[in-house]
């Protein structure tokens, strides 16, 4: 398709949908309704939206959907760290039930017992999976869960009279940038630990960093390298001895289900991404859920409300003594809570453990195969990894000039994703693969084969790779500074129209 920008489809007079009309008698009773608006608040001109018939709007967006590579359509391994797994269709069917879609969050509790039951039952499952004691599903992404945990850390120390004193949070460089960023939003100074030569967080560095200013420690384990810090209990002990709280980014939990838990590792809090590990869809980037779990000691700090169960009735508990308040309106993304509950019930305890084991098996199979590709390597410790690996094309780049960005564009030609967002850019020419449990050996081989082919091309005929994509929806994007030059960027179509002359001058 060569689909225009939607504004270009404008045909004055066309209409996409008819709205429910006002009842004639209502109009007779109250008049036009809008005269009640004070003159200063009347909109003078209609918004400059396009006018398009329904079929054309539909065709436009359906075509755009076909130009989007959902995980349903490819061997979705290349968006490493994102845990792109199979999204069961039965769950999507369940969330479209009007008894889910058409509930108002303020309905009387008696009329939403089913909804509350699902929140509560997922809470019970998450407690068992993590070993922690209470969960909130209000945070609507991993980032927001991290923010909520940082908020709890602050509130906790304030409650203990140490709010001002404890102003540092320790994290590691291979943990997700949101860990540092959200703690900074809560006013914390960030201390970032760099790994040792094997890629492990360094306990000596940690010991050097802790002090009476330590408010908390946040870390992913395994980190985005797929390397598991086996000394994690020692880490949390060190922090606890210093008076800090430990909170666990379980974005990389997919290899750990039923294998090891936050509780035993000594964490006070953790979160899981329901849209990663628990098979809720990513939906182009949300809405999502970061399920936030705490020990009993921290229950009263959770964002309210949480769901409780007494005497056969589910209810919302709003009065949590030290609640941080709210991070998202009402209850969070309820339909994703339902999806994850359904997924856990479809697998059962043995199934969850199989998920973990197969994710690790698949990853190590790929790891073995990828390392055999000319030009590829995996920095840090040798031996096995857990559920993902951050690889490097450093050698390939040195020998052929082909960079990981070039590979990205060439992978498009194979109808596959290959992600470039490998913050922090410490590993050179990085690529991160996470095969999850959802892909068969044949699928993995297909992906590996594409990488092998590109490596071969890089060594034999690098131009093929460097001029990619050859077979994509669009041609290569103009490499000028259209996205970083404030005089040239256009974040909306109206700006594009205003700037068109400027564009023309540049050309």
């Amino acid at each position, binding site marked *: 398709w060569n689909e225009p*920008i*939607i504004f270009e489809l404008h045909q004055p007079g*066309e*209409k996409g949908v008819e*709205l429910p009309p*006002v009842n004639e008698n*209502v109009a007779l009773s109250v008049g036009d*309704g*809008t005269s009640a608006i*004070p003159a*200063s608040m009347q*909109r003078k001109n209609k*918004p*400059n939206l396009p006018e398009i018939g329904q079929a054309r709007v539909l065709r436009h967006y*359906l075509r755009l*959907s076909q130009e*989007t590579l*959902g995980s349903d359509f490819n061997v979705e391994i290349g968006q490493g760290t994102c845990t*792109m797994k199979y999204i*069961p269709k039965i769950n999507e069917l369940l969330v479209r*039930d009007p008894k889910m879609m058409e*509930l*108002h969050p*303020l309905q*009387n509790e008696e009329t*939403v017992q089913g909804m509350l039951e*699902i929140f509560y039952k997922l809470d019970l499952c998450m407690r068992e999976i993590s070993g922690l004691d209470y969960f909130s599903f209000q945070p609507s992404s*991993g980032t927001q869960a991290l*923010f909520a945990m940082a908020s709890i850390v602050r509130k906790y120390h304030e409650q203990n009279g140490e709010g001002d004193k404890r102003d540092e949070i320790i994290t590691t460089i291979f943990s997700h*940038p949101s860990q540092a960023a959200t703690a900074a939003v809560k006013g914390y100074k*960030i201390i970032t630990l760099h790994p040792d030569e094997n890629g492990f967080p360094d306990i000596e560095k940690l010991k050097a960093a802790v002090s009476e200013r330590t408010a908390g420690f946040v870390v992913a384990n395994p980190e985005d390298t797929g390397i598991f810090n*086996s000394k994690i209990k020692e880490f949390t002990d060190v922090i606890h001895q210093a008076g800090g709280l430990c909170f666990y980014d379980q974005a990389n939990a997919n290899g750990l289900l039923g294998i090891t838990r936050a509780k035993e590792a000594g964490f006070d809090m953790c979160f899981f991404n329901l849209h990663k590990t628990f098979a809720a869809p990513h939906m*182009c*980037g*949300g*809405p999502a859920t970061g399920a936030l779990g705490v020990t009993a000691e921290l229950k009263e700090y959770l964002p309210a409300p949480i769901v409780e169960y007494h005497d056969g009735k589910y209810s919302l508990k709003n009065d949590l003594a030290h609640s941080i308040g709210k991070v*998202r309106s*009402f209850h*969070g993304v309820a*339909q994703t809570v339902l999806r994850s509950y*359904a997924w856990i*019930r479809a697998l059962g*305890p043995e*199934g*969850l453990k199989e998920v973990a084991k197969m994710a690790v098996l*698949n990853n*190590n199979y790929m*790891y073995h195969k990828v390392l055999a590709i000319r030009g590829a390597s995996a920095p840090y410790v040798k031996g096995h990894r857990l559920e993902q690996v951050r690889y490097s094309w450093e050698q390939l780049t040195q020998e052929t000039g082909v960079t990981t960005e070039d590979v990205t564009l060439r992978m*498009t030609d194979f109808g596959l*994703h290959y*992600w470039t*967002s490998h913050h922090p850019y410490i590993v050179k020419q990085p690529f991160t693969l996470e095969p999850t449990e*959802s892909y*068969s050996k044949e699928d993995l081989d297909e992906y590996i084969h594409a990488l092998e082919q590109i490596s071969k091309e890089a060594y034999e005929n690098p131009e093929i790779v460097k001029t990619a994509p050859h077979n994509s929806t*669009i041609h*290569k*994007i103009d490499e000028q500074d259209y996205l970083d030059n404030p005089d040239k960027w256009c*974040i*909306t*179509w109206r700006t594009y129209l205003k700037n068109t002359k400027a564009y023309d001058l540049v050309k």
Partner: protein
Amino acid sequence: MSQKVHPYIPNMVPEVQAEMLKVIGVESIMELYSCIPEELQLKENLKLPPALTEYELRRHIEGILNKNTSTKEYVNFLGAGCWQHFIPAVCDEINQRSEFLTAYAGEPYEDHGRFQALFEYQSLLAELVDMDVVNVPTFDWGQAAATSIRMAARITGRKKVLLAKTVAPERSKIIINYGTPTLEFEYVQFDTKSGAMDLEDLKTKLTEDVAALYFENPSYLGFIEAQGQEISNLLKANESLMVVGVDPISLGVLAPPSHYGADIVCGDLQPLGMHMNYSGGQAGFIATHNELKFVNEYPSRLFGIVPTVKEGEYGFGDVAYERTSFAQREKGKESVGTQTALWGITAGVYLALLGPDGMQEVGQTIMQNSQYAVQQLNQIANVRGSHFESPFFKEFIVDFNQTGYTVEQINKRLIEKKIFGGKDLSLEFPEFGQTALFCVTEVHTKEDIDGLVQALKTSLAK
């Protein structure tokens, strides 16, 4: 006996596993876990209920959901931050497409359609608010407001923030949680008869350390704040920014805040095509003018349009990516991650379907219906249809103080008549006594409203 192969996990096939283990060169999968110390490894299976097959799962979940009573079964007058509106079927068709549902963070080539749909969303919403920059959606109105305020503080380099006392209390909690400890907050009082901001109080509190004032229009309490321009003038004189939260479905008839001086506009997309989903439909937006000092302070992704090497063809990409916490960690602007992109695409579909006339029409119908509701409620003895005298959009405070009943009692009786009454305000605004925030939109028929009035009459007569 070997375990069943689960439909979601193809490589549970023992022969395939054996082949893969051989390639890796280990005997068992558990060897791959040798990095996890023995004492951290779980010895027993998780204590979870056993697996259900697809049909059992469906019966199980539907059995639970059947305990709910939805707004399709009862007539609903709850709003207060999550609203029932007409949703065109095309919106559902698009956001249920397998491609959009399962896409995530691909690159501009293989996910061209996602980039275009979100760029178009930005562009369509920009027309509605009449501003030049709109971000990829944030979590919800509360967080959008919180972020807008933090942006204002960074732009002005000031720390104090004024909040209208009529801002939704639950939203304030989000704002304050996101704002502290960096920022300080103070409330500006309102006129108890109209809800309008008390400009004298504003003047008093508008000290030189004020980064911004945040208020909502139409407000949480439903009324329309008419003093936008006056407020803006006061703020401009103080070099403080004006941040306004709006219900976007009002903007076909109400002036967008940019017309009365807003620097940053935010709000919730849920009314534009999202099902309520027990609050899963919320999504926030932020809009500003196209000025570098604003654009540079967005934490969110901003998609921009760029030419490709082929004449006349468009591509898309991230504008000023180096701002973000993806790039800069704690030194980036606030934080960014997965937010609510699918609802952004859906809001775009909604706006494309309605067009300029549709947005005007829906605003008008809402106002006619809600005015009719107040008019009819006023016919009930001891009930005041609207606590405030000022004009309102789709929500209004119904005053039950003279009835002798609490809102809680009244709402219970309404439920017996298959009606969800308005939100009880007696906790959030005790100064109003027994009042409730009712919401009437274009989905309410005359019969729905008359039914409410009749039900109240009967209930109060008891």
